[in-house]
Each structure stands twice: as C-alpha cells, then as structure tokens.
C-alpha cells in the first residue's frame, strides 16, 4: 500500500471544509432517516444539483454521509415506532420495538448506535486495507453463488418468525408474489401490472413497508381506542449497563464480520446481512425464546451487520465503479458529472477522492455517535407524544416520503392499499416481517436462478459443482434440518409414550 496516498486522503478528510460537509451529510442523513418514509435515495436525488458546484471529493463525502447517516436514523424509527424505512431495519424493528414497548427504548437505541459505530470503524479499516483484493474476490461471485446465498438467507430467516411457522411461510409466499409485480427481467413481459405503467418497474419497498407497518399499525391502534401500546411501561434504562455491553460484544463482532463480508457483494449482499445476523444470533443464543420479545442481541447483531455492510458496499463502487444499490448509482452519477468515471483507476488517479472519502467515513461515524447518543433522551420523549399528534405526523411524513420516491401520487394510493392489507394481516395474527423478506429476496432469487440456468443451458448441476454454491446449499440444508428436527423428534416421543 502506498502511504503517500493515505496522507493525501487524511489531509482531504480533515480539511475544515470537508469536515463541515461530512457533518452536514450525517446530520441530514440522520434527520431523513428518522423521518418515516424519507430515504437516502430521494434526498440524494434532490441534493444532486447542489453537489455540482462542490469539489468531487467534498460532494462524495457529503453524499456518503447522508447514506450512512440515514442507516443510523432509520433504526431509530424502526425501534421507536416500528417503522422500518429500508430493508435492513425490518429486522431491527422486530426486537427493537419490543424493547421500546417494555420501556427500554433508550437502551435499544444506544445499543444500535454503539453497535453501528464499532461496525463502521472496523469496516472502514477493512476498506482501507483490503479494498482492491476484496473487490476482485466479490466478482468471483456469479449467478449460481448468489442464488445459493439467497436460498441460505431465506432458510435462515425462517427464524425471523416467532409465532406460527405456517403463518410465516404463508407471509413469505405473499411477499414473493408481490415481488413478481413488474417487468420480468428475463423475458421483458409485464406481470400483474394491469396496464398501470407505474407498476412496470415493480412495487417499491418503501411503499410496502410504510403501508404494512406504518399505516397498518395506525389503523390497528385506532381499533384499540385509548389503550396505549407504546410506552405502556415507564422508561427504565436510558443507557445500556456494563452487563448489557458485555452481552452485546459477541453479537456486534459477529454482525460486523458478517456485514463486512456480505456488503462487498454488489448483487445484494448488504441486504442479506441483517437478516443473516439475526438468524445467527438466535441460533447461538442460549435464550432463543427471547428473540421477538425484546432480545438485545437481536438489535445489536443486525444493526452492526447493517452498518458494516453499508460501509463495505462502497468497495465495489470505489474500486470498480460498480454500484451495489440505487444510492451508490446516484453517487456514481454525481462523480460522472464532475468528469470522473468511477472505475479501477480512481484509486491511483484520484487519491484525494478515494482515501479522502474512506477516512471521512470514519470521521462521520464518530460524528454520528456523538450526535446520536445525547439525542436518545429526546427521541424517547417523542414516542410519549399523544397519539392524536404522533399519528397524523407519521401519516404526513410517510406520504411525503413515498411521494418523493418517483414524484408520483400513485405510490401514495398504493401505500394506502398496503395499509389496509397490513391491518387485515394483524387481525389474522400474521407478521409483516416475513412478507417483506419474501418481497425483497424472492425477485432476486428468481433473477439469479434463471440467469444461472440461461448460462448453463438449463443444467442445474452448476449449483452443486461450484464449491462456494455447494457449501452454501449444504449449510442451508443443515439449517432446514434443525428447524424440522424438533417436530420429528417430538412425534417419535409422542409415539413412544402411547
């Protein structure tokens, strides 16, 4: 590694101007992350023209700050009001919201912030040390490997459900079907679009999540008249105790490792990382029954994984010019306008940009921790707002956020529809998290499966002849076995008793 370039990067990142823009970025990011429905994609789209007047490294530092700041902010809303603004916080919402309902919102928020900080720091170090070889490694991942990875993710995530297994499978199925809406990547055929051009690109995740969680929850609460679900108990701990910190060390470290690894994969690895981490923690825990009812590890692990993944997903973009999500694609757009075509040469030709951005990410993570920890008290108070203030506010922000996705009112109607569906599902005791999982992973799984088969001329043997793919399928099979084994054993025990 050439350290003179790192020096240039340090000088860039620590210039007063860039620190200011980094702060603006993470502050804006946190703010839009906290507001339900508003996400980094819409925000960065709106701010893109402003960055044209900035130096390219300053522009990217700010945009990156918005991106990972939004990851922090997003978990706040997921924990406090059960509103996951992006795929990663779906998992955080499960146990985070339960903790909040027990009056431990402060502890959950602090856990998320500390976990994210540790993960961000380690992942940034990883990028600085190993970015180029990691990026090359990620490209070894072809369609069959992605398919097997998603199968593994889907199987592992069955543990997301803490109620009826049948309901969970049903919900995954509904999610898969919803994910089919839109143009089929392979054939170009429209599926379930009913000739609405707005549906040809599929349904946006935010629309589904805001409808099912946000609107659905609001309707369900109106049902229960004056009884309050939030803050039913007094807020107890605002900060995690030493014992809590010790408890979260393992999950944070494992989440960071998982997130850093999966985040490198541009084909959707980062999305899987929080699901995978939750599954892993539940498997390793000696109190798996706590998961879904407010397990601290269920917040610490996925949050760390999510943040580590968010950081390492910069690797394919910075080293290869390959964006792993829409936010990265926007950042590439910003660089292109500055006349920089992101690609393998950026690291050597633009050391100020490459290293400046990487080092600024760590600065940004420090800022986020400093910014977020003192705010926890304030956030927690926000939840104690009376419903007749809180709900209209959530409704308005959800609508603004959903509108800003495509600047289309159509998406707001769609959200309303999903709100009604969310209410119905609650009545039937079906959880929305598995549905969202199917919605996210289903289309990806189909895409990679069909691409693999196109490339292998229809021969499915590739899944087991390629070692990485085989290994993941074996792990998935083992996991599936452990899920069903108890049923079989139990049946045999019953048989013996008779």
């Amino acid at each position, binding site marked *: 590694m050439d350290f003179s370039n790192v020096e240039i990067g340090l000088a860039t990142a620590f210039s007063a101007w860039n620190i200011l823009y980094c702060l603006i970025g993470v502050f804006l990011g946190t703010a839009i992350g906290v507001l339900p429905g508003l996400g980094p994609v819409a925000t960065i789209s709106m701010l893109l023209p402003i960055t044209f007047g900035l130096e390219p490294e300053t522009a990217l530092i700010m945009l990156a700050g918005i991106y990972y700041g939004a990851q922090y902010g997003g978990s706040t809303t997921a924990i406090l009001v059960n509103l996951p603004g992006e795929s990663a916080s779906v998992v955080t919402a499960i146990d985070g919201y339960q903790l909040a309902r027990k009056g431990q919102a402060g502890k959950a928020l602090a856990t998320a912030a500390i976990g994210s900080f540790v993960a961000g720091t380690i992942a940034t170090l990883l990028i600085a040390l190993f970015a180029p070889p990691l990026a090359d490694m990620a*490209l070894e991942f072809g369609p069959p490997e992605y398919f097997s990875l998603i199968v593994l993710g889907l199987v592992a995530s069955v543990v997301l459900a803490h109620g009826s297994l049948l309901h969970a499978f049903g919900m995954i199925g509904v999610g898969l079907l919803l994910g089919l809406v839109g*143009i089929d990547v*392979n054939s*170009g055929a429209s599926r379930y679009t009913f*000739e609405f051009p707005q549906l040809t690109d599929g349904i946006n995740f935010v629309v589904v999540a805001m409808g099912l969680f946000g609107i659905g929850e609001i309707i369900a609460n109106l049902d229960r008249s004056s009884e309050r679900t939030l803050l039913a108990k007094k807020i107890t701990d605002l900060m995690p105790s030493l014992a809590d910190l010790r408890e979260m060390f393992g999950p944070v470290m494992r989440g960071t490792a998982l997130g850093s690894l999966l985040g490198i994969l541009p*084909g959707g690895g980062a999305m899987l990382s929080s699901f995978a981490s939750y599954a892993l923690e539940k498997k390793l825990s000696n109190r798996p029954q706590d998961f879904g009812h407010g397990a601290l590890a269920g917040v610490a692990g996925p949050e760390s994984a999510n943040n580590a993944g968010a950081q390492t997903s910069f690797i394919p973009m910075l080293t290869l*010019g390959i964006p792993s999500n829409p936010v990265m694609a926007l950042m590439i757009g910003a660089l292109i306008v500055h*006349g920089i075509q992101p690609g393998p040469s950026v690291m050597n030709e633009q050391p100020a940009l490459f290293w400046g951005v990487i080092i600024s990410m760590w600065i940004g993570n420090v800022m986020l921790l400093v910014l977020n920890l003192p705010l926890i008290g304030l956030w927690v108070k926000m939840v104690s707002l009376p419903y007749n203030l809180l709900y209209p506010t959530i409704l308005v922000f959800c609508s603004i956020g959903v509108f800003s996705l*495509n600047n289309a009112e159509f998406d707001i109607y769609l959200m309303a529809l999903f709100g009604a569906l969310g209410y119905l599902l609650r009545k039937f005791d079906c959880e929305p998290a598995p549905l969202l999982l199917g919605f996210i992973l289903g289309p990806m799984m189909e895409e990679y499966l069909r691409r693999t088969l196109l490339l292998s001329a229809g021969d499915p043997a590739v899944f087991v002849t390629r070692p990485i793919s085989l290994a993941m399928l074996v792990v998935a099979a083992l996991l599936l076995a452990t899920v069903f084994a108890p049923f079989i054993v139990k049946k045999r025990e019953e048989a013996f008793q008779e």
Partner: protein
Amino acid sequence: MKLAKIAALVGVAVLSIGPAAAYPDRPVTIVVPFPAGGATDTTARLMGGKMQELLGQPVVIDNKPGATGAVGATGVAQAKPDGYTLMVASIGTYAVNPFLQKGLKYDPQKDFDLITVAVRTPNVLVANPNFPVNSVGELVEYMKKNPGKVSFASSGSGSSDHLTAALFMQRTGTNGVHIPYKGGAPAIADLIGGHVNVSFQNLGAIINHVKAGKLKALAVSSEARVPLMPDLPTLGEAGFKEVVVYSWQGAAAPKGLPADVRAKVNEAAVGALNSPDVKTKFNELGFEVVANSNEEFAKFLGDELARWKQVIADGNITAE
C-alpha cells in the same frame, strides 16, 4: 390601490394574449422520465443548466421515472404545450417502447413537438479478457463454430445494448444467448467476473474498465472511430457497415407549441448544447453533441422507429 389591481389584471390579460412575446416569464421545467444520476438525467442537467442562462429563467429538472420513461413521457404528452414543460428522454422512450410496451399511452411521433436530438454515444462491443477472441471477425467465427454458446449480457430486455446485440447477430447470421440484467452496472460486473462472455455497452460505462485491462474492447458501433479510444476499430471497418448504432437522448415538448415558442426553445437547447463548456463536458463523458433542428429530429426518429421495429420483429423480442 384599486388602480394598481386593475393595472395588474390588465397586465395579466396582456400576457395571456401574447405569451410568446414574454416567453419565458417563469421557470421552465424539464421532465426527465428516469431517475436522477443516470445518463438521461445528466444530459438534461448539463443542457438545462446552460439553457437557464440563455432563457433568463430558472430551468428545473423534474425526475419522473418508471417504465423506461413511459410514465414521465405520458405526463408530458398530456401537459399544456406552452413551452414551460419540456422533456429530455432516451432512445428507449422514443424509439423502442412503442414496440415493447402494451397499452403505451403516448405516440412518440404524434404527441410531441420534437425539439432536438441532444447527444448520442456509441456502444462498444466488449469481452471478458479471458474470452478467446480478439476481434469482431474472430468473434463471428467463434459464434458460428459454437452456435448458441456465447453469452451476451445486456442492461435489460429492449435496452439499446440488447437491441444492438440483436442487430449484430441478425446481420452476422450468428446466435448467442441473451442474458438480461437490471441495468448496465450488474451486467458489467458479471462481464468482468467472467460469468458472461461479451456485451455491447455505452462507451462511457466501459472505457475505464478497458483502460484498466478488466475488459477487452473489440469494436465500436459508431460511424467513425471515437476520439476517446482512437485505436478501436468500428464495426463498419470490421465489415458490418449496417451495424451503426447510437444510444441517444432527445428533447421534446407536448404537441402544439406556438411556432415562436418552439423556435425559442430550439434555439436555447441547441445553443446550450453547442456552448463550448457544455460540449467539452459531454465529450469527456463519451457523448457526442448532436444539436439539430426539429425537422432533422423528426426524420431521424422515423428512421429509428422503422429500424428497431424490424430488429424487434426479426429477433422475436416481444414483451408478451
């Protein structure tokens, strides 16, 4: 006070009688039917930024993405033709959607006043460096020996690079496997990783990968060699003169602009595109500025529609 009100009313009345004289007297919106940050968006922003100076009014970019531009274009087609709503859209929106999208609610030739083709960029035929061909001739030979074996990545069914590949195969009498992706980036990633063999991709998207040795360029689909890659032969030089293809962006307005407004919009758009700083920027990005007249755009669009209709029919590329 009352007098002022009357004066204001009269003023408004005069303005609405003779809007052309005053055009533009308020901000102009350019609808981009694609997300922010993409090629069409960049084109609109670079052009719009300069038009703002030339028109003396703010030019606002409004991204309305969806269905390869069909959602935004439908909106523009139904907007008031007053010169305050313009659109910058791509080859897909203008020349491909009519053949692939069932129930399309706009007709690119009838529903718009075409302003100008803004920019164009050729597609480059690139291969994974380990793929055993080093020229177009060798590729054709290889494909003939291994029919249906060579995989062509594209950024989506019906995309400009997919159609270029289809045209290439039709003209060379070869066939390969089309592997569509969601956008150019994942296609390029799999190409670099060696999971697919070849692809036609926009010049700007692959130039750095070629320079870094991660991809190998075989030919370019332009009429003449491109300044950014002067050593790269054209497909014409390789013997396939019919395969001249550009991915392009064009500006349009709702049908029925008053003639003088239309002239003014064209003047501003063409002026913006031809201004030296904007031109340099486009060239750096691998785009070539076209900036022509309403009539030239109309004729060009007619040719493009006819050509892609044929390619789509011959290649059996249908949506249903």
